[in-house]
C-alpha cells in the first residue's frame, strides 16, 4: 500500500471542524505542520489559547480522521505553543464563515473598533472580554442594539496596560 499524499492529508484535515466554532481547523490556521513518513503521519497543531478545553476533542477528531485514510497506519497528533497562533493564520474563507455565522472578527487585534455583524456599524462597545469560550468576547452595538459575539485572539498588544 502506498503512503498517503500530502494533498490527501490536508484535504482530510479540512474536513475536521473546530468543536467550538463552525469552521474547519485548516481555515482557523491551527495546522502548523504535516509530516508523512511512509504510513506514519504526524500532525502538529497550534491552539488559539493553550488553556482551551477543546484540545483533547480536536486531537481525537484529527487522529480518527487521519486513521480513516487509506495507507495511514499511525497518526501522531500533538500541540505546540511555539510559534504561537496568531489571527493572521485564519484564512479569508474561514473569516467569512464566522461572519456569516453572526460573529464579528477582528483583522489583527481586539483593540480595533468592533464591526457589528448585523448592521456593519462600528459604534460598538465592549461588554465583557470574556464570553462563552476563551476565544470569544461580548460587545454591544449602539446603533442596531444587538449584542455581538466577537472572535477574541490572544492579546499581542493590549490597549489596557495600566488602565
Amino acid at each position: 500500500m502506498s503512503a498517503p499524499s500530502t494533498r490527501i492529508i490536508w484535504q482530510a484535515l479540512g474536513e475536521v471542524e473546530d468543536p467550538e466554532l463552525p469552521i474547519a481547523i485548516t481555515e482557523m490556521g491551527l495546522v502548523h505542520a504535516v509530516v508523512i513518513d511512509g504510513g506514519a503521519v504526524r500532525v502538529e497543531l497550534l491552539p488559539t489559547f493553550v488553556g482551551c478545553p477543546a484540545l483533547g476533542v480536536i486531537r481525537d477528531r484529527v487522529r480518527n480522521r487521519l486513521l480513516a485514510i487509506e495507507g495511514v497506519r499511525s497518526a501522531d497528533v500533538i500541540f505546540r505553543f511555539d510559534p504561537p497562533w496568531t489571527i493572521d493564520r485564519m484564512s479569508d474563507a474561514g473569516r467569512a464563515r464566522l461572519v456569516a455565522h453572526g460573529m464579528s472578527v477582528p483583522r489583527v487585534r481586539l483593540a480595533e473598533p468592533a464591526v457589528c455583524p448585523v448592521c456593519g456599524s462600528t459604534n460598538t462597545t465592549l461588554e465583557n472580554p470574556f464570553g462563552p469560550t476563551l476565544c470569544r468576547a461580548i460587545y454591544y452595538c449602539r446603533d442596531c442594539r444587538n449584542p455581538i459575539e466577537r472572535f477574541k485572539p490572544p492579546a499581542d498588544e493590549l490597549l489596557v496596560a495600566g488602565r
Partner: protein
Amino acid sequence: MTGLWAAPDAPEVLREGPSREALRALLLAMADDELMLGHRHSEWTGFAPDIESDVALSSIAQDEIGHARILYEQVAALDGTVPDTLAFDRTPSEFRNAILTEQENGDWAYTIVRAWLYDHADAVRLAALAASPLGSFAALAKTLQREEKYHLLFGNAWFTRLAGAGGESRARLQVALDTAWADAAALFEPTPGIERLVDDGLLHRGPAGQAALWAATVGPRLGALGLEVQVDQAVLAAAGGRAGWHTPALTQLLDEMTSVWRTDPRARW
C-alpha cells in the same frame, strides 16, 4: 490525561542536574499557583455579582487550570513524573503553591484584590521567564503572557470600580488588601535553587528583583486610588507555601478538587 504537548526543547545546560532541578521547582510552583487559584475562581461560577463577572471568572478559571496542565506537562518532561499524578495525587505538604492562591474566596472584594495582586505578580514572573535563554520554556512564558493580559483587564476594571465606589465597597477593599498583601508578597518566596538559575544567567530576574518590580507596579496604582498597604519586610521570611507549608484551606480545596479522580485513579476520561 495523556500528554497534549510537544516535548520541551531546552538548552544543553538544562541537562545538568542542579539547573534542571531548579527550573523544575520553579515551574511546579507556578503550576500549583495556577491550579489552586483556578479552582478558587471556579467556585464563583453561578454566584458572582453579575453575569459578566460570572462568565469572566469561569473563563479565567478555565485559563488558569489549562495553564496548570501545560506547566505540569513541562515539569513531568523534566523529572519523568506524570501530570495527572502531580495534579491529583500529592499530599498538601507536597504542593508548592503560595498560600495566597489556596485561601478561601471570602467576599467579592477579597476575590478581586487577590486576583489583581496575583495577576500583576504573575505578569512579572512570566516576563522574567520570557526574557531568559530557556528555549521552549521561555517561549511558553511568552504564549502565557498573551492570555494572562485579559485577566489583568478584568482585575483592573473591578479594582478601580470598587475603589472608586466609596462607602462599604471601599472599606471592604481596604480590609481585603490588608488581608491579602502579605500573602501576595510571599508569591516571591524563593523556590529551591532559583538564585543559581539567576547566577548562571538562566533566569533574567530573581525573586527579590521580581518582588521589587511588582511592588513598583502595584504600589503607585494603590497610591493613586488612595489605598494603603502595610509593608512588612518580614513577610517573605514568614512565607512557606514554596516549602510545602500550607493552611487547612488547601486540604479542603484538595479534598473537593480530587473527589472525582479518587473514585477511580486509573479511569480514562
